[in-house]
């Protein structure tokens, strides 16, 4: 069965990165751009904003190269370039989070060189599992709320609770879609799953949730589920919205059954939490959710989560999509690869750049990895 009628809504949104937000702004809705899934989108939504993830563009950069050092990643270059080229005239507000020094620099440059929208930097504790971190983050979100209220007026507790319930429901639904895909890969491709992910970060969550629920219903109604023989791979990596890399992996013979990518499932990480107040629920969620390499919990070995995920997804191998100069990811890469090796899970590392189409040579590596997973070259 063909699920394409249920995918059109997502593909239409990702086809023109700005159109959805531009239309919302034209209809009078305030649009808030944010960079990182750690920015508390529930507060923005509760304050009446359409939160839209700023993911930069695929293609060459120029003006940002004048301002950023050569060791800044292609994502940072790309997003700054879009700001300098005034691609975001409809933003009322931009929110950064302090994930790394480069993004802090981008925030400063954005403020210094644009000035066409208000900016807020959300500071998230690097270690998230201490009492001090909980208090710090709680105070920080109160500060962010106060800054938002300067423009939006008081944000009702009910509005935050409704936004929290919507986002939690959305996370659970995305998790269900991932589970279905991993159980029956091939009905959807990993590339389509990535497009659904990306669309979710550009659309109103309520609208995206309805579309994902419709897709899940259609998925569950399929009786002739495919019986795929392609090697199953789990993808881990840093910031790159370029779906061409996922597409290349699948064209080269591996099926992406799950991911832990900054713009992938990490944006919808589920965590069952409940606070005494709506704000406390939001605080608890962001501290309890699965973390990216920029944040840490209990000095937990970074490889453990990936080994568990690869096993849960029945992945035969892991492919790393490593953005050059992404230091937080590079720090975790070494212990993660060691953990995979200990668990006897093969891995392949691909260097990715947001501004580049994947070089053809990568195809050979992924094809060879697929052949390796299938046990070729028996003498």
């Amino acid at each position, binding site marked *: 069965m063909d699920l394409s009628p249920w995918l059109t809504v997502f593909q239409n949104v990702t086809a023109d990165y700005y159109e959805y937000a531009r239309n919302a702004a034209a209809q009078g809705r305030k649009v808030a751009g944010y960079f990182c899934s750690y920015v508390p989108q529930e507060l923005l939504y509760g304050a009446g904003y359409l939160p839209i993830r700023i993911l930069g563009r695929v293609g060459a950069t120029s003006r940002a190269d004048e301002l950023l050092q050569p060791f800044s990643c292609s994502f940072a270059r790309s997003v700054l370039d879009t700001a300098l080229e005034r691609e975001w005239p409809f933003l009322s507000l931009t929110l950064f989070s302090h994930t790394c020094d480069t993004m802090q620099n981008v925030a400063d440059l954005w403020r210094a060189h644009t000035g066409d929208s208000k900016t807020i930097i959300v500071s998230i504790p690097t270690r998230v599992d201490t009492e001090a971190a909980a208090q710090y983050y709680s105070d920080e979100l109160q500060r962010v709320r106060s800054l938002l209220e300067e423009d939006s007026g008081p944000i009702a507790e009910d509005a935050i609770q409704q936004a929290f319930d919507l986002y939690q429901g959305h996370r659970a639904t995305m998790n269900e879609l991932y589970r279905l895909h991993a159980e029956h890969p091939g009905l959807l491709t990993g590339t389509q799953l990535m497009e659904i992910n990306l669309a979710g970060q550009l659309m109103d969550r309520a609208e995206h949730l309805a579309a994902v629920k419709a897709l899940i219903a259609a998925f569950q109604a399929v009786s002739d589920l495919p019986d795929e023989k392609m090697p199953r791979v789990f993808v881990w990596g840093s910031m790159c919205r370029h779906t061409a890399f996922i597409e290349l992996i699948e064209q080269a013979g591996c099926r992406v059954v799950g991911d832990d990518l900054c713009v992938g499932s990490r944006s919808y990480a589920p965590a069952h939490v409940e606070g005494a107040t709506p704000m406390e629920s939001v605080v608890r969620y962001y501290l309890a959710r699965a973390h990216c390499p920029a944040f840490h919990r209990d000095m937990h070995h970074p490889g453990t989560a990936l080994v568990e995920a690869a096993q849960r997804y029945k992945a035969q191998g892991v492919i790393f999509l490593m953005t050059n100069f992404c230091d937080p990811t590079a720090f975790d890469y070494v212990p993660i690869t060691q953990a995979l090796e200990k668990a006897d899970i*093969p891995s392949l590392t691909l*260097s990715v750049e947001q501004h580049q189409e994947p*070089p*053809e*040579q*990568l195809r*050979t*590596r992924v*094809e*060879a990895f697929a*052949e*390796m997973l299938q*046990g*070729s*070259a*028996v*003498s």
Partner: protein
Amino acid sequence: MSGRAVYAGVDVGSATTKALWIDGDARVLGSRVIPSGGNLADAASRCLQYAAEEAGCSLDSAVCIVATGYGRERVAERSRSVTEISCHARGARALYPEARSVIDIGGQDSKAIALDERGRVLRFEMNDKCAAGTGRFLEVMARLLELDLDRFGSRAGHAVAPVSISSTCTVFAESEVISHLAQDRAVDDIVAGLCRSIAARVHSLVSRARLTAPTMMTGGVAKNVGVVNAMEALLGSPLHIPESPQTVGALGAALYALDEGTQQ
């Protein structure tokens, strides 16, 4: 020769195209190496044809043809494609069953492949974005030094005090060579420095892929005695060089063709 089941592998590389024919008992019937040029599909067809003539069979008598190399998808005659990593592993293992690793240095990339006890690929590392550590690097340097590529490596054996080439980039290494020439350093010493440079570059792949001996070296650069010696010095163990290192990938492809053909 009619009625005999024959199988072919064709390895379309960036510098040369290699074709090799085998019979149903995996005996090599004939092979050929030609420059790839600008038209990869044509090079593959011609190379298969020339090798078929040498093998005493015709192109259309092939039960199955497997293509490999970076131009593998351009081969019209192929039944299927297999990557050069699997093909070099397969070919090396067929020639040298004890091999637990393969180092392939081709025209455009270099590879380090670790094999398990059954000859399956365990791990691999590739240098595919940069000409350093490849045959192209040697070509550029040979041209710069006005040396014949076939005799380039043997000149390293005459070195008295090999120079140090610190850059891993072909363009910057070329500048370094020019500086050494300006300082009137002996060409043999420069050649030895270049061979050490390429070996050091490939050795980093070897370390990352954690290769273990015995190792077979394949690809055109395996014919360069200077690089082989430098590589062996870094590895601390001898390399096994097949009689025709350039056609090992094509042999692996032909063996895959045999598998495919006998399964049909």
